[in-house]
């Protein structure tokens, strides 16, 4: 059918709609365009813009066979209380069919404080596992073969220290570093913009990150050295387009920093990975995944002149949207997570964490985690969504939406370039302000009823408080401090002192790669707080930019 004929048909249709809506108006607050036709994608060149899986610009996915080869990695984020407790949960997950581990650390660990620091009071073991030294890391991975499992660690500001501990545990297990598989989040820019667990100012932080890139490319080649995260930007309230735009802008900043440090784009770009949020609007999310791959491929090819295909592939881990879980009628969250899972799978994710129904209330129980994992397995094995590659390609709507999100992302990237890049945009508070404005708008839309959240602003019921929530006992902190004190009494404190002095010197020399020095300190059982303390002393601390 020619475009003229379609146009004529569309006009006829629109006329009929006008009549119909005069009598029966449509629901309020809908997107303006009600129907998509071939006219909406008439300018989209299939070969250039959509293409084929495993081929530039990777709109349809980064692997040629996608889930027909093997499913995505079902990776459940877990960790709480002590290393011993979390080790039990990890082994339970592996036995239940999880194919990768994902470590959650408590906040003192994420901000580089030991459990006995006064500022850690009340936080030890709460949102993740408390790690003070190599001794805790040994317990965390006890009886887990680091040569076989792939481990993702949600750790950013002190990522270098936790990675060093992981390498040191592997050494003790007899697993060489070049066999280690996994990911550290290591994405400091989104910490400044959205997640808040930063320590050092941008410049030394970027140095630590490029040090890791360089060290791993030589010594831990299978390790994903960064997971450039839009997840938390979205959680902080951004839109889908902002999520990928700000994250890709961060990615550009990391590449520029690494190139400035003397690395070649193709030496590290293949180890960059991304982290997206799977939000409520299924089709918008699918389009977001597709658009993000296209934008990144173009950035790598056109801006950085990458040559290796691997450098141009946006590989992504996904987590379902935590902020969309409701405390009201928590079982409804099972359904939300199932739809979000469907979106991530149709979007072509490489790995996925599904949230548990009770996470708006507390850390998930074992039973809730099982339902969340089963959700992935049902989508994988029963739904048929994983049987054909990029099944929504060619949908007028999804293709048009992919184009729209891509366009909006480019506009933001351009704007951020004008400001002077992601670091400058964060220092000026630009990115934070954009996110906050979107978050405020979302909240006002929910409160005005323009947006409906089932159980929250519609279909509410009187509920009994939920029972059987997981609680981390306050005694965990006390026990962990005791463990730490015992460890400190046993270790060779002179060796610790010497290693920390050596690290301090290395910090002061900008041309020195810090990784070997950190590894050295970790092996002496220097604590995370001691190591970060040395770096704090030399680097200073970041002061947040808040502009409400």
């Amino acid at each position, binding site marked *: 059918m020619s475009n003229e004929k379609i146009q004529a048909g569309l006009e006829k249709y629109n006329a009929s709609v006008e009549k119909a809506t005069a009598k029966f108006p449509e629901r309020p607050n809908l997107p303006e365009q009600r129907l998509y036709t071939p006219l909406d994608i008439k300018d989209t060149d299939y070969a250039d813009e959509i293409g084929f899986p495993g081929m530039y610009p990777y709109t349809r996915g980064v692997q040629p066979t996608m889930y027909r080869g093997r499913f995505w990695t079902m990776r459940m984020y877990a960790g709480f209380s002590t290393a011993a407790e979390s080790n039990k949960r990890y082994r339970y997950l592996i036995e239940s069919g999880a194919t990768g581990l994902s470590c959650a650390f408590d906040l003192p660990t*994420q901000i580089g404080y030991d459990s006995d620091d006064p500022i850690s009071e009340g936080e030890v073991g709460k949102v993740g596992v408390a790690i003070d030294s190599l001794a805790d890391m040994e317990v965390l991975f006890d009886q887990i073969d680091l040569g076989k499992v792939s481990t993702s660690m949600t750790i950013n500001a002190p990522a270098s220290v936790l990675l060093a501990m992981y390498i040191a545990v592997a050494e003790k297990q007899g697993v060489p570093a070049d066999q280690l598989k996994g990911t550290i989040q290591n994405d400091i820019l989104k910490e400044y913009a959205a997640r808040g667990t930063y320590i050092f100012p941008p410049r030394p932080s970027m140095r630590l990150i490029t040090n890791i890139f360089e060290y791993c490319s030589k010594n831990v080649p299978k390790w994903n050295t960064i997971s450039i995260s839009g997840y938390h930007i979205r959680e902080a309230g951004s839109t889908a387009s902002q999520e990928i735009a700000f994250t890709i802008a961060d990615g550009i900043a990391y590449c520029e920093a690494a190139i400035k440090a003397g690395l070649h784009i193709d030496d590290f770009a293949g180890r960059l990975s991304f982290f997206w949020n799977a939000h409520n609007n299924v089709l918008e999310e699918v389009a977001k995944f597709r658009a993000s791959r296209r934008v990144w491929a173009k950035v790598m090819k056109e801006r950085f002149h990458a040559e290796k295909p691997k450098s141009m592939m946006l590989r992504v881990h996904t987590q379902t949207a935590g902020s969309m879980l409701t405390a009201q009628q928590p079982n409804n969250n099972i359904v939300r997570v199932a739809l979000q899972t469907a979106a991530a799978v149709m979007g072509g994710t490489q790995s996925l964490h599904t949230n548990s129904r009770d996470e708006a209330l507390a850390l998930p129980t074992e039973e809730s985690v099982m339902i969340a994992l089963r959700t992935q397995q049902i989508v994988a094995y029963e739904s048929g969504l994983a049987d054909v590659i990029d099944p929504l390609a060619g949908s007028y709507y999804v293709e048009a939406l992919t184009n729209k999100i891509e366009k909006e992302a480019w506009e933001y990237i351009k704007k951020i370039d004008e400001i002077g890049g992601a670091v400058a945009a964060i220092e000026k508070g630009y990115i934070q302000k954009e996110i906050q404005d979107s978050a405020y708008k979302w909240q006002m839309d929910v409160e005005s009823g323009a947006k409906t959240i089932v159980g929250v602003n519609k279909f509410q019921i009187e509920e009994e408080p939920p029972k059987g929530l997981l609680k981390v006992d306050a005694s965990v902190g006390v026990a962990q401090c005791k463990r730490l004190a015992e460890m400190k009494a046993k270790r060779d404190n002179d060796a610790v002192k010497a290693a920390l002095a050596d690290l301090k010197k290395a910090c002061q020399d900008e041309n020195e790669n810090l990784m070997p020095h950190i590894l050295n300190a970790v092996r002496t059982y220097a604590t995370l707080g001691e190591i970060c303390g040395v770096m704090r002393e030399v680097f200073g601390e970041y002061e947040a930019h808040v502009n409400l």
Partner: protein
Amino acid sequence: MAKVRVLVAKPGLDGHDRGAKVVARALRDAGFEVIYTGLRQTPEQIAEAALQEDVDVVAMSILSGAHPHLFPKVVNLIREKGMDDVLIIGGGVIPETDIPALKEAGIAEVFTPGTPTGDIVDFIKANVK
């Protein structure tokens, strides 16, 4: 011409300030003067800021689960400074079962996820001294 002054604070270490910021803006739009302290404030810092700013309300948000420890600590420090009439409220990821103990400790009201900001505004208007 008195105005309701509110200190919006994030005690503890969690960096999830979406809720705190949304609430801060909503309180401003309701005509209050809002002092936002930012992340990682110790209970001592929050109490001292409340004193220097002579606020009528202290609103805290915690998503890490550290509320049973930190909320009561802030209440005690504020009362120790002689500010008996400051209204202290809290919010975040807080299990229903924890709420009675928090109220017992002097938290006037606890707002859990999904609370419309209008409810918080109304509560403050009705209870501020």
